[in-house]
């Protein structure tokens, strides 16, 4: 494959996918063309993948290339799309091939069954914006001197100095954008924050002039979120092996809803990383268990990446090392709190690669990073497509927690039942054990294929659920509990 692609070639690939798989994907131009120094406005497109139009089907949005110099994720998103569409069209598994690391250890292959691929394509919609900053990428590829360009190429009010060009798009989203209002003066001046979010237009982390969404590129991401029923969001970056969930703006807490970014009482008083008097609210109550859902997902992504290449990604909230405002994943997540009618949103960002691969992996290094992107996206899509879509379809309503205990959920009537949670916990613990994990993964591959069908049958027959509960599941759980108590 011809990595790395120019911005023009990325757009051509998107168009090519639409032409090659016309019944499975649709290419649509974004409403805002770029506005960049010295080049004409550029039209660019996003891709929607999915077959069918069932009501309430889940949708995920994947964004890559917000930062110009991070070359690997956009190409990887394209090859992910191509592989997924090829697998579905051919009725084959989605296979991430074996990777042999520098030490000679082989990792993978990671195989996602054709049945799961089918569920992904037929039960959900995948929106892909492979290159969110096309003029920035084109500039960074134009010469070695431009290699570290991070921002877009937007002309600023004082365009005399070349360093006064462009905005860090991942600081331009409308979440605590004006950090001088959001934080206390001390928190805004905290060195770790101040180094990564700035109002200085010559900075690499310049938030933009006048207002959030000052840039065409961020407006296009907002437009996607405004106009499509997206409830799962992921933003791809390079390069430090971290799978993250909100918040980047503050440390988080799950108990006090009044401490939230909208509450003006806290304006100019939030303490950032200087203390815990203020922490941003992250709901985790039933039925959504939103924080649990996020932590479950990032662990699943981390584990799948490790299976694929052996890389040890870490997980955690985006604030892990430093706070910043105006990021895409925080914004996507925050939208659910803006109105009572807003749907629940799950939001993630991932930094792919490591320092050896850096922002621009070599041609030889790209296949490793590409596998890691594919691993993250396939497990993410599988989670959305199977859990939210497939199970919804066969059970008639979405399960209420992040588990895939199809049969137990059908039998007990709710995923919140104590015994379902017990089984889910046991499964998760078993998967953490290195000797049991391979067995569990093989078991799940079969179970995820057959479990929903069995659950659908059980769902139709009350007598069958009662019998199964009384004579199979209840004794089994009792046995497990007694063994574990011993």
């Amino acid at each position: 494959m011809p990595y790395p692609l120019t911005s023009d070639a990325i757009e051509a690939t998107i168009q090519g996918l639409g032409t090659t798989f016309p019944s499975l994907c649709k290419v649509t131009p974004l409403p805002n063309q770029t506005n960049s120094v010295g080049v004409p406005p550029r039209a660019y497109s996003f891709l929607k993948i999915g077959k069918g139009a069932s009501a309430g089907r889940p949708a995920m949005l994947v964004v890559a290339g917000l930062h110009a110099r991070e070359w690997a994720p956009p190409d990887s998103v394209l090859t992910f799309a191509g592989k997924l569409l090829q697998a579905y069209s051919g009725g084959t598994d989605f296979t991430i091939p074996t990777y042999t690391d520098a030490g000679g250890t082989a990792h993978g292959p990671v195989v996602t069954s054709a049945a799961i691929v089918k569920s992904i394509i037929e039960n959900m919609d995948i929106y892909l914006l492979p290159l969110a900053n096309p003029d920035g990428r084109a500039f960074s590829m134009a010469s070695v001197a431009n290699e570290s360009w991070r921002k877009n190429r937007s002309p600023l009010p004082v365009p005399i100095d070349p360093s006064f060009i462009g905005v860090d798009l991942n600081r331009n989203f409308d979440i605590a954008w004006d950090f001088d209002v959001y934080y206390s003066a001390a928190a805004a001046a905290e060195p770790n924050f101040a180094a990564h979010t700035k109002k200085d237009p010559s900075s690499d982390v310049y938030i933009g002039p006048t207002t959030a969404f000052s840039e065409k590129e961020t407006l296009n991401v907002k437009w996607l979120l405004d106009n499509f029923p997206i409830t799962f969001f992921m933003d791809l970056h390079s390069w430090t092996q971290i799978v993250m969930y909100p918040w980047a703006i503050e440390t988080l807490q799950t108990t006090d809803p009044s401490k939230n970014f909208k509450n003006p009482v806290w304006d100019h008083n939030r303490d950032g990383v200087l203390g815990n008097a203020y922490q941003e609210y992250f709901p985790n109550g039933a039925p959504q268990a939103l924080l649990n859902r996020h932590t479950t997902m990032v662990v699943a992504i981390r584990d799948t990446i490790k299976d694929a290449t052996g890389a040890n990604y870490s997980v955690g909230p985006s604030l892990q090392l430093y706070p910043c405002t105006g990021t895409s994943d925080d914004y996507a997540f925050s939208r659910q709190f803006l109105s009572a009618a807003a749907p629940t949103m799950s939001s993630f960002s991932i930094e792919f690669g490591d320092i050896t691969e850096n922002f621009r992996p070599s041609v030889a290094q790209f296949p490793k990073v590409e596998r890691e992107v594919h691993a993250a996206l396939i497990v993410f899509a599988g989670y959305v497509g199977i859990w939210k879509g497939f199970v919804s379809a066969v059970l008639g309503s979405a399960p209420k927690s992040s588990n895939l205990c199809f049969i137990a959920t059908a039998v007990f009537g709710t995923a919140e039942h104590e015994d379902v949670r017990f089984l889910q916990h046991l499964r998760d613990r078993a998967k953490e054990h290195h000797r049991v994990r391979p067995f569990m993964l093989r078991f799940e591959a079969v179970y995820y294929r057959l479990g929903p069908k069995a659950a659908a049958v059980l769902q139709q027959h009350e007598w069958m659920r009662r019998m199964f509960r009384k004579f199979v599941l209840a004794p089994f759980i009792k046995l497990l509990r007694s063994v574990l108590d011993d």
Partner: protein
Amino acid sequence: MPDLITIQGDLTSIRSLTDITTLQIIDETGKMLDANNAIVGAFADSTAEAAVQARGLTVTVIKTEAQYDADVQAIYAEISNTPYDFGGNV
């Protein structure tokens, strides 16, 4: 372009590095190893490397300036204007 390095150590010390003017911490590169221990990437000349080490932090050279330049040149030589083609394998 100075050497590409990683800096590992306690968070407080890493966060105090902003006064070393020839040290360029690369944005969005922090990785927590545990509650207090982190690793970040940076570009640094020999003076900056010594200053970082003097604060009890561990410096590891990932690529020398020459290696980095060579790698950058190599990847620029590979930039492609040929789209991916997924049509032939279906």
